[in-house]
């Protein structure tokens, strides 16, 4: 009887303890408000038009419509765009998740980038494939050791440093050479 009672108390106590370390998702961008995104002006990126669109949204009612205006060439095979993130701290987070809708063709790849730390050092993740139509929950591991940056000679061999102070967040769309115009929708960028 006593044993049963103690077991019941133990079970009740255990049930009242919240799950420790459960990763909560925070929305970094859902494109529901004003558009704070800009294309980069790097020499090795193609030109792009960005607009908040009321179509192909996976979260809320709007997404970011990315209209790629140039044919991809050998050394200009990507477009990139970014928003300022005001020094957010992602050091306790494990991943970034992105939903992508690729309207025109398969073969594109998505990467994310950050400017972090005191010197706003740029880091870029490895690429992830996105097929035609929706590819949801594309995941980028914030703890992986395979980011690239100037210090790694642009090889995918460095951990993401400065995560406690992220000044800018980037999305990059890589395309096969000779792919002409394309339209991609980005939505539901989360950190968890």
């Amino acid at each position, binding site marked *: 009887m006593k*044993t049963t009672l*103690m*077991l019941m*108390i*133990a079970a009740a*106590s*255990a049930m*009242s*303890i*919240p799950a*420790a370390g459960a990763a909560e998702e*925070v*929305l*970094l*961008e*859902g494109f*529901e*408000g*004003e558009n*704070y995104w800009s294309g980069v002006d790097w020499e090795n990126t193609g030109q792009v038009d960005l607009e908040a669109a009321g179509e192909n949204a996976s979260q*809320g009612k709007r997404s970011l419509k990315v209209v790629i205006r140039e044919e991809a060439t050998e050394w200009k095979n990507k477009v990139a765009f970014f*928003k*300022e*993130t*005001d*020094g*957010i*701290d*992602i*050091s306790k987070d494990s991943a970034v998740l992105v939903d992508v809708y690729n309207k025109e063709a398969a073969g594109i790849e998505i990467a994310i980038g950050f400017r972090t*730390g*005191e010197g706003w050092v740029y880091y870029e993740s490895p690429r992830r494939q996105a097929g035609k139509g929706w590819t949801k929950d594309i995941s980028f591991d914030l703890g992986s050791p395979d980011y690239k940056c100037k210090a790694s000679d642009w090889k995918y061999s460095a951990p993401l440093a400065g995560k*406690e*102070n992220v000044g800018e967040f980037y999305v990059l769309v890589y395309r096969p050479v000779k792919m002409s115009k394309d339209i991609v929708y980005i939505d539901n960028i989360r*950190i968890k």
Partner: protein
Amino acid sequence: MKKAAFFAVLAAVIFMMYASVHAEEKLFDGFEGANDWDSESWDNVGGVTMAVSAEKSSEGKQSLKAVAKDESEDWKNRFVISREASLDLSTADMYMDIYTDAPSGVSVAVAFDTSGEYYETGNKLLNQGWNKDVKFDLGAKDFKCKASDWKNSVPLADRSDISKVFILVQHPKKMKGLTVYIDNIRFK
């Protein structure tokens, strides 16, 4: 006998787990009375208006409504509020509930004056709606201060001698009229 000892140990372990999760909680401000918070007017922060409000509360019946003034722009894209205190936070962490209508891009940090020095945490990103139990680990080693050259690389010093508590709310530069509701500020 062995069974009784086993269950005694089990009960003790469960009690310790329970106690650690439900550590004593001290309410620093629930905004049920007058507003004790001031806005900071540093060069790099925008203006804010504050009022105790019954519109959104997560504890009691009132919260603090803080509205960013529209002239906040460029590098003044945050506001800072503060309250004088006399606290020993040697073993405590800070928690708060904060509500925002902004769809995304708003973040919050806290800071402390300890023995005359200012220490600030990193910025935690907020979801739209209620963000409850937003936790700031006061034992973390990534505070920034003048001595760290404003790099997030030092622990909070003199935690037993906190003389002022700050809350910093960052928002995208072009965002106008950001409104947040803050409530249930606790140390535990």
